[in-house]
């Protein structure tokens, strides 16, 4: 299955797993040391980028799953996973110590197929006007970027802070879905519904927050592993 690299599997797999867990739970703490350890396991920059892409995508998909309340629908011989809903998130550092990801590392992925697909995805999610306005999308993305301690993106969206109760509701939704997706409940969507957001707007709210979580990790995974 692993085409002759079985002897590398344990250490390489362990390093990939460590990287995925850190980039998911505390993306601001990724350092060039993570990149060096992955490189020592034979993973080149294209493989690190691919690993980062998978982590980013699953930070999107898990948030969509958690916020939408879909049910598990695959057959598995493994025991049913019971999430620990009381788990505390990793404390966020002070803003002053949020890492800066250089602009050259905020480009879209180096492999063409993903870069094209990602660009089309982000344009649609962050820039369309319906069923959420651009301002509402930026408010959601700003809150998510701050939860990721993604200084560059948070600074870019710094003007987007809540101006009224309705916008505060979006901000709270984005913060919870970013920081503790495992705590999401039906009431979180119901609150947005009660504030007048139609059902497609709820899907877009989830998508904006989930995509910012993915994109911040994409930038930090690539940028902060580089020496």
């Amino acid at each position, binding site marked *: 299955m692993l085409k002759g690299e079985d002897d590398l599997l344990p250490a390489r797999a362990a390093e990939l797993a460590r990287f995925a867990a850190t980039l998911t739970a505390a993306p601001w703490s990724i350092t060039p040391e993570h990149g060096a350890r992955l490189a020592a396991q034979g993973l080149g920059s294209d493989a690190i980028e*691919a690993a980062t892409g998978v982590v980013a995508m699953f930070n999107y998909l898990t948030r969509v799953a958690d*916020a939408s309340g879909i049910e598990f629908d695959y057959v598995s011989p493994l025991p049913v996973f019971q999430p620990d809903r009381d788990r505390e998130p990793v404390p966020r550092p002070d803003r002053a110590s949020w890492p800066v990801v250089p602009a050259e590392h905020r480009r879209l992925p180096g492999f063409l197929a993903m870069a094209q*697909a990602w660009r089309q995805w982000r344009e649609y999610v962050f820039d369309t006007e319906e069923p959420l306005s651009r301002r509402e999308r930026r408010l959601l993305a700003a809150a998510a970027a701050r939860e990721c301690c993604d200084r560059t993106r948070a600074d870019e969206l710094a003007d987007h802070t809540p101006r009224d109760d309705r916008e505060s509701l979006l901000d709270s939704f984005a913060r919870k879905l970013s920081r503790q997706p*495992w705590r999401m409940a039906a009431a979180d969507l119901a609150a947005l519904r009660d504030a007048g957001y139609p059902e497609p707007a709820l899907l877009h709210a989830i998508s904006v927050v989930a995509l910012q979580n993915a994109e911040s990790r994409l930038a930090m995974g690539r940028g902060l592993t580089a020496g």
Partner: protein
Amino acid sequence: MAWLATISRAEAAGELAETYAAMAARPIPEAYRPPHDDAPGIIRAHSLDAELMRRTFAVSGSLHRSALGWAERELISSVTSRTNQCFY
């Protein structure tokens, strides 16, 4: 039942029905075929917007053509889900 409204494959019409059909035609491992006739929940969660569904899963599809093999991608996605305390 999901908290967000969704449209099943059987109820879908027009652009959504076409998108569901295109997604069902993609090669996927047997383990990822749900034991029901509908689309997997994570795809159905995007069913209020066929365009969003198409653009989202174009990205996840592109990951299959990256520098990592299937087993390592599965490992990374499993660790990511577990770290987020998510069943998906």
